[in-house]
């Protein structure tokens, strides 16, 4: 069996001595004699050295026979979960765009378990170069079938030969990749004859040039020997590759846009300066709200208030809750707003619970009594009517709904919210009509006391201003709707 001589120590990208390798042998690689990995390692190390990019290269090693690449390559390296090298490489390339990511993968790793990570990274045009060892089997685990195994080829899991009816046909990765728009360079080489190895050397060099120059995604497939598992001599192995494998896997360049692709500039550095972060994340202080010592005077606010809004999806009932939550926030209360979430929102019923308290809010869920129910669909009212108890306020849309029997002592208020909103020219302002009605009820029944009566209108205006600060016409419309709602109840 003739052996490819790997010139250790020749490329400074290899360690002089493989001290990371456990056991007594520190001069040889662990690959079998004649293994394609050994040749590719050497070509890659030389190409990295030739370009002087060793300090920048981050090598992502697969699961497979090349899992221990970090024994040999004198550069940043990580050995990653089976098939995931292009995803790990994506993480590296995105947070450290000045580095050069090489993904080194076998055919089980890339074409079977990790095909999605591979093809997606390619499709995103990650700035990385992928070197793909196609040795027509799973080397490390003992010669099982790979997606690249040839029809009829015997492996330890195709003891009768690969049956295309059962196992499908060999997977042509270059050809599949070539259907994507974004890859820059795609070539298939063979590590067999000297001439083929010379061609491969050029291809590897081009993929590294593209990497260095930030041109985009480059891919080189290498038909490689695995003499141990294929039980072939070196000569038979090369014959198998050159004559059998190339029938399915023709050598050559599938795409080369290296020359016309422009170098992509480095993205701007991330912002971590605290003052800038604050300016970009924190909302600007608006000239609204109250001093942090302000307390509303009504006795109402001495306890936790539990408010529920219910209707059907699309009526804006969730925004009504958010508006109330905002109003409470502007008066120094703690608030929680909890929607019923999920498919329910799509056309079905929708509701939300708002809790307002001076203290830390307990349960955000209303499952028994509530202080306020705003119901704007019949289904919603029927569903939650049992949560309305003596002392609760109920507001409903009297233009479309009828009242079920309710306990004595409930403060009930019907308002033609949707009608009024339509008259104002926009159905969306029905929420503000309802809030206007709420204001009227709270004042009329002296639930709001003293200065809080006027303050309710004020805080509504502030919340509208805060929500729509860039749209003066929307602010005006909602303020008008609020006034109309209040008028309708007082009429």
């Amino acid at each position, binding site marked *: 069996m003739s052996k490819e001589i790997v010139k250790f120590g020749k490329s400074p990208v290899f360690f002089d001595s493989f001290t990371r390798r456990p056991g007594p042998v520190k001069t040889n690689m662990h690959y079998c004699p004649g293994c394609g990995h050994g040749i590719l390692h050497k070509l890659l190390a030389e190409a990295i050295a030739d370009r002087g990019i060793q300090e920048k290269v981050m090598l992502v090693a697969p699961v497979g026979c090349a899992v221990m690449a970090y024994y040999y390559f004198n550069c940043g390296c990580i050995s990653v979960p089976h098939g995931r090298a292009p995803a790990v490489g994506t993480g590296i390339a995105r947070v450290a765009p000045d580095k050069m990511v090489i993904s080194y993968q076998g055919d089980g790793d890339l074409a079977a378990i990790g095909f*999605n990570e591979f093809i997606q990274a390619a499709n995103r045009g990650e700035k990385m170069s992928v070197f793909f060892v196609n040795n027509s089997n799973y080397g490390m685990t003992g010669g099982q079938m790979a997606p690249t195994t040839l029809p009829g080829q015997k492996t330890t899991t195709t003891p009768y030969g690969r049956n295309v009816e059962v196992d499908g046909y060999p997977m042509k990765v270059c050809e599949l990749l070539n259907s994507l728009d974004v890859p820059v360079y795609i070539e298939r080489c063979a590590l067999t004859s000297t001439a083929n190895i010379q061609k491969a050397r050029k291809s590897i060099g081009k993929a590294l040039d593209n990497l260095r120059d930030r041109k985009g995604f480059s891919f080189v497939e290498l038909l490689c020997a695995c003499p141990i598992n294929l039980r072939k001599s070196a000569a038979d192995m090369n014959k198998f590759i050159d004559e059998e494998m190339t029938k399915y896997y023709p050598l050559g360049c599938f795409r080369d846009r290296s020359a016309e692709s422009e170098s992509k500039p480095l993205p701007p550095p991330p912002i971590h300066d605290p003052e800038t972060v604050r300016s970009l994340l924190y909302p600007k202080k608006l000239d609204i709200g109250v001093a942090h010592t302000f307390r509303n005077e009504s006795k109402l606010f001495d306890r936790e208030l539990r408010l529920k809004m219910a209707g059907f999806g699309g009526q804006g009932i969730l925004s009504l809750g958010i508006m109330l939550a905002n109003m409470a926030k502007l008066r120094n209360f703690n608030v929680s707003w909890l929607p019923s979430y999920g498919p329910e929102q799509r056309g079905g019923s929708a509701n939300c619970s708002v809790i307002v308290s001076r203290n830390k809010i307990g349960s955000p869920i209303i499952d028994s009594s509530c202080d306020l129910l705003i119901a704007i669909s019949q289904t919603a009212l029927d569903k939650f009517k049992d949560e309305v108890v003596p002392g609760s306020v109920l507001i409903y849309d009297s233009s479309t709904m009828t009242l079920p029997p309710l306990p004595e002592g409930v403060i009930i208020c019907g308002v033609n919210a949707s009608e009024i909103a339509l008259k104002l020219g926009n159905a969306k302002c029905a929420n503000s009509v309802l809030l206007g009605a709420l204001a009227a009820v709270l004042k009329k029944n002296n639930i709001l006391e003293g200065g809080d009566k006027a303050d309710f209108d004020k805080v509504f205006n502030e919340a509208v201003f805060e929500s729509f600060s860039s749209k003066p016409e929307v602010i005006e419309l909602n303020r008008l709707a609020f006034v109309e709602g209040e008028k309708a109840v007082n009429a």
Partner: protein
Amino acid sequence: MEYNNRVLLVGNEAAVYGALLAGCDSYFGYPITPASEVAQEAALLFPRLKRVFIQAESEIGAINMVIGASAMGKRAMTASSGLGISLKQEGVSYLAMYELPAVIADITRSGPGLGNIGPEQSDYFQLTKGGGHGGYHCPVFAPDSAQEMCDMTYAAFDIAEKYRTPVYIMADGVIGQIMETVTLPEPRPPRKDSPWSIAGKREDDGTPNYFTTLYLEHSELEQIRLRLEAKYKEIEKNEQRSVAYKLDDAELVLCAFGVSARVALRAVDVLRSQGVKAGLLRPQTVWPFPKDALRGTLKTAKAFLSVEMNCGQMIDDVKLAIDCSRPVHLVSRCSGNIPSVAEIVARAQEVMKEVTK
């Protein structure tokens, strides 16, 4: 310029604020209800700070991107819900073995399989007992509010880096979806990339750093496993967090986290008004489980009640913490249902009748 640091945020959004203010460099996501708002908010805000946001091809893709970013010494985060977390577990096991920091939020939904998108706490076993293969632990924070979503995510990055471990934020769907007033923490000043990044050099021999999880020699791997175990012991000693409510004289100790703890807290008040000396221990970390605080209640405790939104998972840790020295009972609802105050109170009354017989 004057800013307002008190804002209304949905829990899932609050986690993103916590991450950004903690200096998180990168977010890798994949949509899933009820966690999607984390990815959506990250998609909005990370680019604003010129930080990295990628919608990955899958949860597997996302966790492996986290591995890559973390190996470069940057702060990285991902989020998902139950089934997506299952897919991430291979990557989390690698992170644990690499000893790489990362923050992972699980906004838990209901049941095995697809289940439903209602809130549950069914990933307790998955997250607190390791989750993936090989035997490891990750600290798991259990926020009970939008504020804690923010604060715990913020803190998780420091814990992750201090112990070089993945850290989970485990929030039931309610805590992910609830909107509350949140006081934003201060942005962390810029930090240096971690010295162990693969862009750096090793201290011992000056060669480039590398990460692997493969140790072919049994004794070498055993040494590493023992080192990891020692680290887990250290975390168990230092990082148990919990909040006590009316526990000083409690004869009945409720134990609950997340939204069920907020319901349980109201139940404690009701029980007290009915003359039952009840109290609540709310774990803020479920791994390490706050064993010491729970044992502290044994002076007065006659019985324990684990309140959970699953079919009973934390109850095992309650029993272990107190060595089964008291009866431990369960109130549980699942599949999107939340135990009501009335349910908890009724069960508590039964339990107290039983122990005072």
